[in-house]
């Protein structure tokens, strides 16, 4: 699950947007500047983007731009802004099909706020756990560990691109959170089960919420 990059040309081909749109969105900060990665290739310098992130973002922009002006869009998309004060009830989550009932019933009580509501961060953590459970990578007990890990480091990683590494050695599960881009190297006994870019999931989650 390497973080794939996509060149500017491929991005335009895949999404059908124009250079003008791309640069306009950049100026309006719909596409964050950190995503413009300059790299030298054999034809000279080229700009690349993190594939998953940028495709999800462009998709979101295209879907929403009919109803909202670009400035409104910018305030809605800028990181978790606009969503950070969102609070949902268990019922709303189930209705929107954000995480499965299984996840909700297993962990819901541990993570919900005092008033029984779920914040965006909590929702994100559940969403991460749900994804890993759905892939069959992780079992329910490990999920609890994951949620604790995410919960205790939310503040430090806020607003920074971050990756979650899920590894196992001799059957023991370990979770690691690393601000990206980070490269981790493990000893031979370690098996990397999953590597999740939290930014991708934030993007997907926002898509489901809006």
């Amino acid at each position, binding site marked *: 699950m390497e973080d794939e990059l996509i060149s500017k*040309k491929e991005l335009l081909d895949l999404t059908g947007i124009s*250079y*003008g749109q*791309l*640069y306009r969105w*950049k*100026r309006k900060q719909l596409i964050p500047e950190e995503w413009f990665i300059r790299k030298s290739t054999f034809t*000279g*310098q080229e700009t690349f983007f993190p594939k998953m992130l940028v495709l999800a973002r462009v998709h979101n922009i295209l879907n929403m731009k009919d109803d909202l002006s670009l400035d409104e869009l910018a305030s809605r998309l800028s990181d978790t802004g606009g969503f950070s004060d969102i609070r949902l009830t268990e019922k709303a989550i189930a209705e929107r099909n954000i995480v499965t009932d299984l996840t909700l019933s297993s962990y819901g009580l541990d993570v919900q706020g005092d008033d029984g509501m779920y914040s965006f961060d909590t929702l994100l953590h559940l969403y991460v756990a749900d994804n890993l459970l759905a892939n069959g990578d992780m079992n329910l007990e490990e999920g609890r560990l994951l949620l604790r890990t995410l919960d205790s480091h939310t503040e430090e990683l806020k607003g920074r691109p971050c990756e979650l590494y899920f590894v196992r050695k001799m059957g023991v599960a370990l979770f690691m959170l690393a601000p990206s881009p980070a490269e981790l190297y493990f000893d031979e006994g370690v098996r990397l089960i999953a590597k999740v870019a939290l930014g991708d999931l934030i993007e997907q989650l926002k898509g489901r919420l809006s």
Partner: protein
Amino acid sequence: MTDPVKGNLKILGNSSSAGGSFQNVGITGECRFTGDVDCVKFGLTGNTDIEGSLHAQEIKLTGECGVRGGIDALSVRGRGELKIDSRMKAERLAFEGHLEVKEDCEAGEFRLSGVVEIGGLLSGDQLDIGLFGYSRAGDVGGGTIRIKPSKGYKLMKMVHPNRNVRFESRAIEGDIVELEHVSAETVRGGRVIIGPNCIIETVEYRESLEIHKSAKVRSQVKL
């Protein structure tokens, strides 16, 4: 914006200021700001140095202006010399003279005649550059890009026939690209017109490509 605490600043002659937040700023003469300037209208006739950044709705310049920090504005108009050590962002820019930006310059509508030097990326929905002398930019990107010698240059050419104009850049990418007297490594676009006296390594185009007979294009690729 209608905050009653914000006053106007008017300077006639030679002065200096710590900067701050104002309604209107008008300078006739010379002024040095030692901090950030935040205002609605910024008018200058003369000479100014801002050691912080300049944030304004409307900037009108006649003369020389140096900004250490960045510029963030809705509209920038004027003539003279504008030097920015950091980056510039403006919805509309119409300028005659010399524009120098060390980092990126992002604009909605960018019209300039004279000399432009951009260290980073020059981007905008509409870029219209009339060249007069040697200009350059790291990269250029946007919707419609037109880079041509200005009318003034054609006049000067009659008096000084061996003076040349040139615009140099690494990559130029736009939906509609029209270039004259431009040297670039790569030009990518939808509709591309390579005019006289261009030297381009690679042109990649989607819809159409025209190349003037005096232009040199090493390779062209239809996508």
